[in-house]
């Protein structure tokens, strides 16, 4: 049945080469954990992506209930966590996944560093990876404020003060982040929400695409 549908589409659109390009690629022996168990370190990048996908999905579902407004943000989070079925699970996935994605990304960075995979010709991909790292930290920072509880508020106050300590530009960066020169409040929350769900994810998708295209172009780096 599925095969027939596939053949019908393939006969007309010739899609086999397209997904072959995506799915069919060489996995050298030295990165295959079935050959050398220690090669599991090569899984960290894929695991980071897997958790990122979970973050995107759970985040999409959370916005069905969440309101980025000082009056209602905490109440809507309380409601979705305690009144909606599986709310605790879905919020938990996003909450714990946020930390896990940083851990996995860090392990992936260590693997790339200690296998020397950043060396020529892969310097550009290391740079893009650093960009992804920064975006992930930005997602973590902006997402932390959204529940609008005391921990979120004071963490953001500290974070914005750190940003304000940048020489010369500090005050401008602070106002730009907070939406107000003195208050961390209503405007900060909507800004952080917009950055968290639109701007940073868009940048993340672009960099991830570049990251993966470069891997496919250059192949996996050789054994140690």
């Amino acid at each position, binding site marked *: 049945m599925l095969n027939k549908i596939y053949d019908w589409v393939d006969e007309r659109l010739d899609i086999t080469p397209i997904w072959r390009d995506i799915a069919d690629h060489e996995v050298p022996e030295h990165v295959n954990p079935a050959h050398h168990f220690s090669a599991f370190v090569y899984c960290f990048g894929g695991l980071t992506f897997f958790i990122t996908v979970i973050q995107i999905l759970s985040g999409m579902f959370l916005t069905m209930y969440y309101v980025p407004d000082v009056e209602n943000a905490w109440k809507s989070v309380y409601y979705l966590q305690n009144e909606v079925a*599986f709310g605790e699970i*879905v919020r938990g996935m996003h909450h714990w996944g946020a930390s896990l994605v940083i851990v996995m990304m860090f392990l992936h960075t260590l693997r790339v560093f200690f296998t020397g995979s950043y060396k020529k010709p892969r310097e550009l991909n290391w740079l893009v990876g650093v960009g992804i790292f920064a975006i992930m930290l930005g997602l973590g920072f902006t997402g932390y404020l959204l529940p609008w509880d005391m921990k979120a508020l004071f963490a953001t106050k500290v974070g914005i003060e750190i940003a304000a300590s940048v020489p010369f530009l500090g005050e401008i960066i602070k106002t730009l982040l907070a939406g107000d020169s003195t208050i961390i409040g209503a405007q900060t929350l909507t800004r952080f929400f917009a950055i968290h769900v639109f701007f940073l994810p868009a940048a993340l998708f672009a960099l991830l695409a570049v990251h993966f295209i470069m891997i496919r172009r250059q192949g996996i780096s050789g054994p140690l």
Partner: protein
Amino acid sequence: MSKNRVTRRQFLTYTITGVGGFMAAGMLMPMVRFAIDPILQTKEEGDFVQTSQKAAEITEVPVKVDFSYEQTDGWYKSEVADAAWVYREGDQIVAISPVCKHLGCTVNWASDPTHPDQFFCACHAGRYEKSGVNVKGTPPLGPLDMFEVAENDGFLMLGKKIANTHSN
């Protein structure tokens, strides 16, 4: 051993699809259940709401009775205004909901000069008899809803919405 031996590739395809499907289901099941919660949530039945209409003053001519009640909408609680058209029918009090059964506009009693003894919806000229039964040939496909009624200390109380009990 049957003739169709499962090849190594087939075996891998099946196990990977199975394990992958199981993982995907484990991820998606909570999220989907979370998203469809509104259709599975059970609502508590509303209590009777006190109005400021004296029951003894209700006549056979429908009058609009405004009332309000506390509504819980997710995390948001608010006082919501609503209204009913109330009249006496024998020894019974009838309370008709003003929400048009065509597309949900608000109907008024006798607001159409050519039909002074009917409910009229200004949106698409839908009309209803005093009983709430829709006039054939106008847009509404069913009769107006009714409220359960009760009396407390001489004042009218309105309960939850019920289907119109007047027959077509």
